[in-house]
């Protein structure tokens, strides 16, 4: 099962290595990993998505709690949360295909951030499903390069009844 883990850490030397090591040392493969500063100085938030069985993950979260530099650990899949990812993708185009790619971008509300005769760089933000759908659409044109930030996420303030 896929889990989105949010870890609030002190921004100290080696903290990323400690957190990443805690996953790898327990046989979890990290699918995505995102790190960035928070609004409070000296603190960073690490968002990791991992696949693994629930009991092992429970163990992993407890071990993360034990790290001195870790303040909070949350398995966001326990509640409702908002998750986003940013992708930059360089798509091959020519005179004929360019309008079609631009149209796909409009539908997905993606931005074109670099234009050349033979390729476009497109910036797209969304949850993983939206990004997967978009990439599926542009794939036939030829993806030359791609960079993704990995998921970053926050829990919702109020639970939405579905």
């Amino acid at each position, binding site marked *: 099962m896929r889990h989105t883990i949010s870890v609030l850490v002190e921004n100290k*030397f080696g903290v990323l*290595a400690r957190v990443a090591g805690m996953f790898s040392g327990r046989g979890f493969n990290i699918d995505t990993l995102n790190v960035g500063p928070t609004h409070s100085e000296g603190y960073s938030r690490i968002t990791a998505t991992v696949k693994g069985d629930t009991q092992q993950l429970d163990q992993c979260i407890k071990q993360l709690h034990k790290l001195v530099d870790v303040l909070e650990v949350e398995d966001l899949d326990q509640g409702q949360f908002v998750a986003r990812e940013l992708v930059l993708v360089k798509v091959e185009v020519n005179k004929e295909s360019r309008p079609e790619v631009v149209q796909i971008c409009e539908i997905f509300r993606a931005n074109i951030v670099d234009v050349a005769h033979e390729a476009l760089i497109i910036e797209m933000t969304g949850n993983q499903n939206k990004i997967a759908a978009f990439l599926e659409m542009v794939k036939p044109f030829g993806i030359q390069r791609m960079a993704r930030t990995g998921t970053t996420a926050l829990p919702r303030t109020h639970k939405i009844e579905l």
Partner: protein
Amino acid sequence: MKTETLPNTPTNVTQSPDLPAAMKGADLLVRSLEREGVEVIFAYPGGASMEIHQSLVRAGNIRTILPRFEQGCGFMAHGYARTTGKASVCMATSGPGATNLVTCIADAQMDSVPLIAITGQVKQEFIGKSAFQETDVFGMTLPIVKHSYLVLDINDVPRIVKEAFHIATTGRPGPVVIDIAKDVQQEILKGDALKKAWEAEMDIPGYNPNPRANDEELIAILDECAKADRPVIYAGGGIITGNAHKELLEFAEITGFPVTTTLMGLGGFPENHPQSLRWFGMHGCVAGNWAVCESSLLLTFGARFDDRITGAIAKFAPDATVVHIDIDKSEHHKNKVVQYPVHSDIKYALKRLTELARERGFKAPSIDPWKEKVYGWHTEHPFQYDQDCPHIQPQRAIQTLFEETKGEAIITTGVGQHQMWAAQFYQFHQPRSYVSSLGLGTMGFGLPAALGCKVAHPERQVIDIDGDGSFMMNVQELATAVMEKIPVKVMLLNNQHLGMVVQWEDILYEGIRGQTVLGHPENIGSPDNLDALYPDWGKICDGFGVKSRRVWKQEDLREAVREMLDHDGPFLLDVVVPYTEHVMPFIPAGASARDILIKTPSK
């Protein structure tokens, strides 16, 4: 609520009227160690740490003991920390000095020992350049530390030392590494900056070491106790590291439940107490193993369901309702899923359990048939060995040592058969008296650990019960014993083999020897073949200036043990024993306690 002062907790940390106008980083480090109450350091110098040694000499307040190998200093610190509960400091230089400490750090992590490992690091300008004697100690030790620091700023030195001692000794204790660059050691800090650095407070907001059980959780446990018909208390190393042996005794006595400990918990409950089933696990007492296996209520206090305790986890206490009180939440459900996980300091939890029992008029259940059964097993299956053997068996040697020291000595061990026999035939009635590498199982632990114990407890007899395999791994520390005048004793159970592996070869591999003979393969020494014994421990001891004696006849044993104990310096007693003895009982890996082998299967 009033709590006891923790060891090493500085009482008056910020005041320092006599701070000099300027200080070198190394002096500041030493001064910070003094502030934490450090009296002894075990340290081997080198290029990247000699500044600190110079400071130690200048300050002159901390006894600095020179081992003959960095691993020696690490395990000396283990002996000191394990028998005092205080943090203990070992120190080495960068590169190989630091890598030689790695085993000691891993060992401290496994057995929850408050070890402070200080390593010199190359100057910052050389870090990452594959400089001479450079290794990434911080990175290398990440999976085996409770916490670690790479010190690159002299202003951080006093705060880091303060944090390191706090982290090492509180909560579940563990090792903290401080890797300090040489230029930081040499830099000079002056005036207000120095004052500010010295007075800096700890900054570890993510660290909450003192969980406490709430009353509802504890009352639920008491309710289980009140209706239990087959209860057992399973007490682990947490009782000792948490200084909770008195609280355990009190709780055990108001419930009347049988108590069995782990090897880590040895001495946490007096083994001569009528409720004691001594210790259980792979080579533990039959009654303890069977009692846990058949229990209906298992009260687990400060233990972690290690595989050497549980055997096949599915068959471990299969019918029991399990209570698990531990200070480390990550131990809950890790190996065994339990009904009552309680996240708490064990000393507090046991004290509060007893208080609540009194307040609520707890009535101990009547469990006479159960007691009759388990204590019946205990009488029927004590630890035993063949009394008819013409030679000195290792068990007999340890039994004799126990009698001659009245059970009051501190015993250290290496790893293997002798380690198990020491636990079986020496009885421990007080905590912090059996000092052994139990989680990691590091051979060579015994002698250096004994030196550390003796430094901490000069008034007590400290004896390393060792095997000839383990002892050889840190034999060089005999020099430390002599030069530092540390009168430890070694009872060497010399069987010319790696006995524990030999035992497994006998049981599982048809006795085929795979590099387990330590003597001449064609002419193996034994009590019947004294000339072939290898090496000549007497000559080795002569070289080091350590008094020694070889003993091989039963009739000489007691007097030889007496001579060892009465000698006022270091002493090695080379006890020549047959290699054919097996440690019994034995629960084969993957089996249940029901399948325990009580006697050596006939060959």
